């Protein structure tokens, strides 16, 4: 029931070397990177339209907020019926959870751009795409990064749940395999890997991103 620490580390190490765990990491990371990227792009685009057109805000905006409260894995049964029990379904749920979050954060970021900056930009002759690219987007970066962090968390959870239920390779499936074979050491090894990946992404990637912006903007002193 509870394997010893040495047993776990042994399985972990072997799994990394012989490829069992390494392959699973690759599969999972591939899925989440793809899904996450799509979510960012779609989220920014939707966020733009909701911010720009009041009509869209009143209709789509409201829907997005409602959809955001649905946990990503809840979409899985629907995805299976629509797309079948395959890679695409898993990608679907990974993307969908993050998309609503990115949309909400993007809209919020765009809305909170101080009117002063907008006035300055207009006075110097900026408009249209230039205005978006040089003022709205940079000014929203702190909020967007904040959204990225949350979106990643949702995507990651969706990914693990999807792989656990759906199979098709990846860390989640490895968990299920470990369970069905009674290999608790494998299960715990995978859990350790999941924790490590999560920590690296949050502490290395996002924290660093956030800190760079804060130092540049002067919100945080150079530590």
């Amino acid at each position: 029931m509870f394997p010893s620490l040495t047993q776990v580390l042994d399985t972990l190490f072997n799994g990394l070397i012989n490829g069992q765990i390494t392959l699973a990491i690759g599969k999972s990371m591939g899925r989440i990177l793809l899904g996450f990227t799509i979510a960012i792009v779609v989220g920014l685009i939707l966020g733009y339209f909701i911010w720009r057109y009041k009509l869209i805000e009143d209709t789509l905006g409201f829907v997005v907020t409602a959809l955001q409260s649905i946990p990503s894995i809840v979409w899985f049964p629907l995805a299976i019926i629509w797309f079948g029990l395959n890679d695409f379904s898993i990608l679907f749920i990974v993307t969908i959870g993050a998309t609503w979050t990115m949309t909400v954060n993007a809209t919020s970021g765009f809305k909170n751009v101080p009117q002063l900056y907008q006035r300055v930009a207009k006075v110097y002759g900026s408009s249209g795409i230039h205005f978006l690219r040089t003022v709205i987007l940079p000014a929203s970066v702190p909020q967007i990064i904040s959204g990225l962090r949350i979106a990643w968390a949702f995507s990651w959870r969706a990914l693990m749940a999807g792989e656990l239920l759906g199979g098709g390779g990846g860390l989640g499936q490895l968990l299920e395999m470990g369970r069905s074979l009674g290999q608790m050491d494998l299960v715990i090894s995978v859990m350790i890997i999941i924790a490590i990946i999560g920590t690296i992404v949050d502490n290395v990637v996002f924290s660093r991103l956030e800190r760079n912006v804060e130092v540049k903007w002067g919100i945080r002193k150079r530590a």
Partner: protein
Amino acid sequence: MYLTIDGIQKSFVNDRKENVKVLDGINLNVKKGSFVSIVGPSGCGKSTLLYLVAGLDKADNGEIRVDGELVSKPGPERVVVFQEAGLFPWLTVLENVTYGLNLKKMPKEEAKAKALDVLKMVHLSKYVNSYPHELSGGMKQRVSIARALVMEPDILLMDEPFSALDEQTRMVLHKELLDIWRKTKVTIFFITHNIREAVLLSEEVVVFATRPGRIKEIIPVPTMKDGITPDSVTLNTEQRILSILQEEIEKVLKEEIGDDYSFKTDHLHRGDSGDMGSHI
């Protein structure tokens, strides 16, 4: 006349859905290369007028022309220096100053050279690659002025640019602004609530009445030929303007405090019931 403001009227709808008339028939002409200030109590519409000249807002009636052309939208020919500088925190000082030039598709090297020139004029050459948060309020405002000047505008519109700064910084920036004005001969349209500042800097002071905003009087500021004005003349002009504004200031205070506030005698008059006759 370089800048003509003709019969401008502007109203806003306030929170209580009432129509508030902010500007009631403004007529003003400004010569090219002159330095004109607008002085008035808070809420008299002077900033609104500046926004209309900038093209950031549209008047209900009347028209504004610069060099004969109708003002319809904002543009770098009528660049604005805002009270809070408004530098983009994600850009360096140099990038902030070249923002407008890049928009005009000026080649990078040329834009950089021009920016460095104008930053030298405002004495910020050492901070060219700093980020705005590393600068003091006065320095930020200098960058804002540099950014505006590098566009070689028809008119420099300044919306209470020094109001948020301390006295010493303001004194330094006054001198710098006057130097720049004499050197570049740019037309300056300057908004302030500070009478002394208006008299120190401009050639003409337009005194505004409030609620609704109207031009009450235009006071020319006497300057000696060598540019140095004796303090007594400055003081005299200030007093003149203050006495014109007194009525307007009392109007604002009465609205805000509610009682009869007498500006000169400096006491609160609480109506007849509290009057024990001590003033007889």
